[in-house]
C-alpha cells in the first residue's frame, strides 16, 4: 500500500480510556448459598462417621489397639461372609446383566402389552432386600410353595432347600431372590440408555445389511457402554450391601459381610468389631469403584471436555 486512505466511518472508535473495570457481578455467591447446606449435611453424615468409625475400630479402652481387627479376622464367620459376598457378586452380576439386557431388548421390540410388562418388571425396584427375602421364603421354606408344587406333582414331599447342610441350594435361593429383586435396577438403566440411542443408527446398520446380532454387537452395545458401566458400578456396590435377603432366607447360615456388621452390633453387642467390618466394606466399595472406572474408561470419551 502506497497510500493510507481513511477507513469508512463506522461507529466512533473506543476511547483508549475505559471506564474503570466494573465489579463483576458473579453468580458464585448465590450458587454457593444454594449448594452449601447439602455439602455440609453430607459431609457431617459421611466424613464424621468415617472418622469415628476408624477410631472405634482401632482404639480400645486403653489406647490404640489392633485387637478388634484381629478378632474380626479370627472369626470364621468373617471369612465365610467375605467368600459368600464375593461369590454372590461374581455369579449374580453377569446373570443379572444378561437378564436385564434380554428384557430391555424384548421391550425394544415393542410387543403388545409392553407397558404392562414394564410395570411388572419394575415392581421389585421398590422392594427392599428384606421383603424380597421374605417373598422367596414363602417359596423355598420347607413347607413352602416350591415343595408344595413338587408334592402336588408327586415329586417327593419336601426338600430342605434352605438348610445349612445344603450349601448349594441355599446359595441358589439367595441368588434367585437377588436376581428377582435387583435386576429391575439394571433394566431401568439399560432401557433409559437404549432410549438415548437414536433409532437411525440401528436402522442405518440394518440398511447396510447387518443382521440383528451384528447390530446388537456393533451398534447397540457400544452405545450402551456408559449406561452399562454405571449400572455395573452401582450394582456391584449395592451387591456388597446385600444382607437382609440372606438373613430372611437362611438366618446366619449364609452369612454376608453387612450381615456380620449387624450380627456383631445387634446380637453380639460389639460395636468395635462391627465398625471394623463396616470399614472393610467401605474400602471394598471404594476399591471396586476405582477399579471399574479405570478398567472401563471409554477410550472415546477421554480427553473430551464436559
Amino acid at each position, binding site marked *: *500500500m*502506497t*497510500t493510507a*486512505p*481513511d*477507513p*469508512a*466511518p*463506522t*461507529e*466512533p472508535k*473506543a*476511547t483508549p480510556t*475505559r*471506564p*474503570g*473495570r*466494573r465489579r*463483576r*457481578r458473579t453468580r458464585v455467591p448465590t450458587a454457593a448459598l444454594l449448594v452449601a447446606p447439602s455439602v455440609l449435611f453430607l459431609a457431617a453424615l459421611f466424613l464424621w462417621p468415617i472418622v469415628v468409625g476408624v477410631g472405634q475400630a482401632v482404639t480400645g479402652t486403653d489406647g490404640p489397639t489392633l485387637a478388634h481387627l484381629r478378632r474380626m479376622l479370627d472369626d470364621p464367620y468373617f471369612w465365610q461372609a467375605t467368600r459368600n459376598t464375593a461369590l454372590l457378586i461374581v455369579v449374580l452380576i453377569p446373570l443379572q446383566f444378561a437378564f436385564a439386557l434380554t428384557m430391555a431388548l424384548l421391550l425394544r421390540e415393542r410387543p403388545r402389552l409392553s407397558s404392562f410388562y414394564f410395570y411388572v418388571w419394575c415392581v421389585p425396584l421398590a422392594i427392599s432386600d428384606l421383603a424380597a427375602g421374605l417373598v422367596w421364603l414363602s417359596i423355598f421354606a420347607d413347607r413352602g410353595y416350591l415343595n408344595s408344587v413338587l408334592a402336588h406333582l408327586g415329586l417327593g414331599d419336601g426338600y430342605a432347600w434352605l438348610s445349612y447342610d445344603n450349601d448349594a441350594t441355599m446359595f441358589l435361593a439367595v441368588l434367585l431372590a437377588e436376581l428377582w429383586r435387583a435386576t429391575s435396577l439394571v433394566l431401568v438403566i439399560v432401557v433409559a440408555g437404549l432410549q438415548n440411542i437414536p433409532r437411525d443408527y440401528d436402522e442405518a446398520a440394518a440398511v447396510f445389511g447387518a443382521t440383528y446380532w451384528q447390530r446388537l454387537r456393533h451398534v447397540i452395545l457400544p452405545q450402551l457402554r456408559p449406561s452399562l458401566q454405571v449400572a455395573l458400578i452401582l450394582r456391584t456396590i449395592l451387591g456388597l450391601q446385600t444382607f437382609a435377603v440372606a438373613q430372611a432366607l437362611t438366618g446366619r447360615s449364609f452369612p454376608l459381610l453387612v450381615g456380620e456388621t449387624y450380627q456383631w452390633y445387634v446380637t453380639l453387642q460389639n460395636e468395635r468389631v462391627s465398625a471394623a467390618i463396616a470399614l472393610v466394606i467401605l474400602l471394598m466399595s471404594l476399591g471396586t469403584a476405582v477399579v471399574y472406572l479405570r478398567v472401563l474408561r471409554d477410550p472415546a470419551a477421554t480427553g473430551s471436555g464436559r
Partner: protein
Amino acid sequence: MAEIVLRNLVKTYPGTRTPATDDISLEVRDGEFLVLVGPSGCGKTTLLRMIAGLEAPDSGSVQIGGRDVTDLPARLRGLSMVFQSYAIWPHMRVRQNIAFGLAMRKTPKAEIDRRVGEAAELLHLSEYLDRYPAQLSGGQRQRVAVARAIVTDADVLLMDEPLSNLDALLRMEFRTELKRIVGKLGTTTVYVTHDQAEALSLGDRVAVLRDGRVAQVGPPLEVYDSPADEFVGGFLGAPPMNFLPARVDRADGRSRLRIGDQSTAAPVALGDYPGDEVTVGVRAENVEVFDADGPDRLAARVEVVEPTGAAILLTVELAGRQLKVQAPPTFRIGPGSPVWLAVDPDRLRCYHPADSTAITVSG
C-alpha cells in the same frame, strides 16, 4: 418512550478467551427500530441480553431514557422482550401469559382485562385466550409472545430472533405484521436477527455486528448500497455482493479498472490511487447483462443459469472469478454462452485488499 445509550460494553463469558462483545458503543434514538444483525456468534444476542439486564457487562454502561441501568435487574428496567423460543409459560393459559407483566405491576384487574383484550385483538388471539400454549400452533405462540411484550406499554421493546422458529411463509407474513404493530406503537425497539432480509426490511437503522464489534451502522439502504467493508457487503443481500481483484489504471486522463485483461470505467473516488490494487464490489442487480459486445462491456462466460421467477440469476466467469449477475426474466441464454457485462461506475464499491475496508472519496 426512551432512548438507549450503550457505552463501551465489553463482555467475555467465563471459560472463553475472545470477548462476546468487544467495546461496543451504540445509540438507539427514542422510537427508533434498530436491528442488530450478524452471523451467529457475532455478539448480537449478548448485546441484547445486556440491554435487557439478563447479562452483566464486564465493563461499560447501559442507559435507558437517560437513566444508568447497568446495575439494575431486568425487572426494574422498564422493558419488555420477545424471546427466540417465545418462552411462553406452558402451565399458564394464554390470558395469564399475556397478563403476567401487568399482574407483576399490580395493575387493577379491570385494567388488566381491558389491556389483555386489546392486545389479543391486535394479534388475533381473542378466541384463544383461555387455551393453554400446548393447544396453539407455532405461529399462535409467537403471537402470544408478542402480545405479552406489547401489553405492558414498556419504554423499550427487545426482540431476540422472534421469527426464526416460523416457517418461511409465516415468517414473511408476520414480518409485515410486526412492522405494522411496532410502527403503530412507536416504541423504541431493538431487534436481533441473523437474517439479513429481515434486517433490511424491518429496521429504521441496521447495525451489522462481527466478532463482537459493530462493523457498520446506518439506514438499511445505505448499509446495503455502501457496505463499509467486504464483510458487510458479503453478509447483506442475497446473493451477496460480488468481489473482484482489479488494478487502477490511468488512460487518456481518466481512471480505468483493469480486471484480468479487460477494463472498465472506474469510479471517481479511485482518481487518487493510480497503479494500486483494489477489490471491486458490485451487487448482482447493478450489473447489466448483454448478449452482444459494446463499448465498456466486459466479456464473461455463463456457467449456471438459475431462474428465480422475477429475474434470472446467472453465475458467470470473469477473469477466473465467479460472479453472480441478474438478468431480466426475458433474457434467454444457456450455460457456456458468452455474455457481456456493463457496470455503472457509480455503483461500484472499492475496498483495500489488505484490510478490506472501503475506499471513499476522501477530503
